[in-house]
C-alpha cells in the first residue's frame, strides 16, 4: 500500500473512532447524567435517583412556596427546597445543584454558588497568549507541517 493511502486510512480510522465516541456520549448521557429535558419528560424513570446540574443558575425564587427555577441554557426546572437551604443566584458564575427525584417531584439536596467563576475564563484567555508565545518560539510552518526552529539551522530533532 502506498504511504499516502496508508496515511489516509490511518487518519480515517482515528477520526471515525473519535466521532463514534462523541456519538456514544451524546446518545447515552441521559441514562447516567440526565439533562433537565430528559428529567422533565420522564421523571418516574429517574425516580429515587439524585442528579446534578452545574452549568445553569437560579432565575426565579419563591421564598413563600419554597421553590426555585433553575435555568440551564434554554431548559428550566422547578425545584422545591426546605428550610435547610437559603438559595440565591450566583454572582458572575454558575450554580451547582443536587436534586433528589421523588415521585415525580424535584427536591433540592444540595447547592453551591460558584461566585466570580467567569473570571476564570477571562484569565484563561491569557494562556492562549503564553501558548502562542512558546509555540512560535519553537516551531515554524514548513509547507503543511510544523518543524522545530533549531532544525532549520541543523539541529538534531528534525
Amino acid at each position, binding site marked *: 500500500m502506498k504511504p499516502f493511502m496508508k496515511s489516509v486510512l490511518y487518519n480515517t480510522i482515528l477520526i471515525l473512532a473519535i466521532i463514534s465516541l462523541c456519538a456514544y456520549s*451524546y446518545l447515552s448521557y441521559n441514562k447516567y447524567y440526565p439533562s433537565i429535558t430528559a428529567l422533565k419528560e420522564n421523571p418516574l424513570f429517574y425516580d429515587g435517583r439524585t442528579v446534578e446540574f*452545574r452549568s445553569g443558575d437560579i432565575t426565579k425564587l419563591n421564598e413563600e412556596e419554597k421553590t426555585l427555577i433553575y435555568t*440551564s441554557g434554554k431548559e428550566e426546572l422547578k425545584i422545591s427546597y426546605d428550610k435547610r437551604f437559603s438559595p440565591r443566584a450566583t454572582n458572575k458564575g454558575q450554580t451547582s445543584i443536587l436534586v433528589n427525584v421523588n415521585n415525580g417531584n424535584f427536591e433540592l439536596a444540595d447547592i453551591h454558588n460558584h461566585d466570580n467563576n467567569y473570571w476564570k475564563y477571562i484569565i484563561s484567555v491569557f494562556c492562549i497568549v503564553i501558548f502562542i508565545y512558546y509555540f512560535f518560539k519553537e516551531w515554524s510552518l514548513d509547507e503543511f507541517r510544523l518543524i522545530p526552529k533549531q532544525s532549520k539551522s541543523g539541529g538534531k530533532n528534525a
Partner: protein
Amino acid sequence: MPDLVSHVLIALIICELFSIKPKSLVILGAILPDITQKFYLVHLFIPTSDGPYWLLLPFHTPIGQILLSFIIIQLFRFDRKKAFIYLTIGWSSHIFADMFSRHFLLGQLLLFPLSWKSFEFGLMWFEQYYIILAVLIVIYLSTKMLKSHFPPVYFTGGLCKNKQQVENENKKSD
C-alpha cells in the same frame, strides 16, 4: 478544574523539572482537553441544551486525548514517539489536576467509554482556582530560581551527572 493558566504552569513546571524540549508540545497537551471540549461554553452567550457538553465530553477523557494525540503528532515534522509522549504528559497533567476539583457527582470519566464512573479527589470547588494558580506561580518561580542556582542533573545510563560532567565527557569522546 483549574484555569488554563494553571494548566500551562503545571506543564512548564514539568518541563523545567525534567528538562523537556520543546516545551510547547507539553503545553499543547496541557491545554488540549479544554480547547477542544470548552466549545460548549458557547451556552454562556447562546442558550443551548446540554447536548454540546456531552457531544464534546470525549475530548476531556484519556481515550479521546490518545486518539487526538495520534492525529496531532502528524502535523509535526518531529520524532513521533517523543511528540506523542510529550503531548501525553501534557494532557495527563491536565486531567490529573482537574481531579482535585470538587463536584457533587460528575468528576473525571477516566474509564470512558467502558464505564461512566466518575473519579476525583474533590479538594476544592472550581471557583477557587486562584488558590491553585497562586501556589503554581510560587512553585514555577522557585523551580526557575533553583535551576539558575544549581546546574541541571542529567540522567544518563542510570548515573546522575551534572552538565559540566556531560560536557567534559563529550569533549573527551570528540
